[in-house]
């Protein structure tokens, strides 16, 4: 297999590396770039743990060849906090207790970010549709829904108050 040059922006930084054609975006993000916030769950697209944003759209990194991301802008959970401050969605997940084992959390938060960027005032149905196909095996869905609602309403940063 001939390696190909892959150029993309990951979390705001330009990266360039040679990759095998049969490497998925998940493989490259986790193994080459050591962004282990991207999780491998089912590896068949059904669970949502590997969700990242490609050009602001939620996609499954396990179903995307790394080379298909050539020229794209990728956002993983590692790129969400700015200047040491958590993103409001991350804060909301912490404050609402929407994280249990945490394995689904990166995918949940990134999918929610894509939703809020597209539709800043989603109703419960919109949120559920955006998160359908993202599985939380701790079954903490009610708290996840509350966290997205809180982020939508700007109801974050209240911890300890």
């Amino acid at each position, binding site marked *: 297999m001939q390696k190909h040059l892959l150029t993309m922006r990951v979390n705001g930084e330009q990266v360039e590396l040679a990759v095998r054609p049969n490497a998925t975006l998940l493989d490259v993000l986790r193994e080459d770039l050591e962004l282990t916030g991207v999780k491998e769950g089912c590896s*068949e697209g059904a669970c*949502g743990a590997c969700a990242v944003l490609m050009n602001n759209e939620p996609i499954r990194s396990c*179903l995307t060849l790394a080379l*298909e991301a050539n020229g794209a802008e990728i956002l993983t959970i590692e790129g969400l906090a700015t200047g040491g401050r958590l993103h409001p969605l991350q804060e909301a997940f912490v404050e609402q207790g929407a994280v249990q084992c945490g394995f689904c959390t990166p995918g949940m938060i990134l999918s929610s970010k894509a939703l809020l960027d597209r539709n800043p005032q989603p109703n419960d149905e919109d949120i559920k549709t955006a*998160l359908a196909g993202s599985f939380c095996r701790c079954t903490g869905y009610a708290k996840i829904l509350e966290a997205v609602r809180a982020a939508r309403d700007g109801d974050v940063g209240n911890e300890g108050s």
Partner: protein
Amino acid sequence: MRLPPFEYQAPSTLDEALKIKRGQGAAAQILAGGTDLIVNFKHRLFSPATVISLNNIAELKRIEVTHDALVLGAGASLAEVASHPAVNEHFPILVKAIDSIGALGIQRFRGTIGGNLLLQPRCIFYNQSHYWRMSKGLCHRTGGKDCLALEGSDSCHSICSGDTVPTLLALSAQLALAGGGGKRVAPLAEFFTGRGESPWNIMPEEILTEIRIPLPWAPISWSYQRLALRPAVDFPLVNAAAAAIVEKGKLEHFRLVIAALGPAPMVLREVEARLKGAAPTREALDLAQDAAVRVAEGVVVANASASKEYRIQMAGALARRATGEALGLA
């Protein structure tokens, strides 16, 4: 889960892609969105020598309205099709069908309209890991000579599972395919072979380029019905689409399609012939239901996550609902 080894090419024009396909034929596999194909690779259902990505071919992503048709580039993403103003204006049924596909985070932005149409037919004995399949015999699609769902069958009964298939068929869509001898246009109705091991009338050197939907001469009333265990992620257990044109109280055009039953979608022509020209009445509902059950009985085998008998009865129920909604009788 690892992918099998393959070479990768991402040409920027259709001509280049066709040239590679001509050179390698079936050994080169076309990759559009990959949301289903990559899973099939991981399960070792396909191990192509070369993967040809259509990602860089802008001409395959065009959506345009000509004087008589809506033309969808086969590589247009499901999100692009579903949000296009012309699609929403002329064919909201297609938007409904696309909305029902899997989940937003899986297929919506990566999946393509051509890919949904050319979704590999599915079977519970086929869409499994290599490890799982090792415990069963081979079937028509994996190099054997039998069907694991219907012993002694001389062909494969995998299920055509694309949500847009019955919809596009109800809208009398045509396909444009490019190949060695230039472009050809074929009715979608003639595209399916009914054999799961080679489900489409497509040559190894051909690439699906466009889906053309004729603009209706009068307003269409329509219905898309789908049954699945869970609305998200799951493929349909049965689906149905109906399109009708009613003028001055008379049914001028009617088409009813049921699918997700066997390798080919089924157009219920007999219902169409019986209803055309008459005023729509509730008798149409019984007619559609009975015809759908009869057709389903001849097609459905025990190869999905619901029983054969249930899927046959539900084909009738969905044909009834689709007819009722399209004819305003519901």
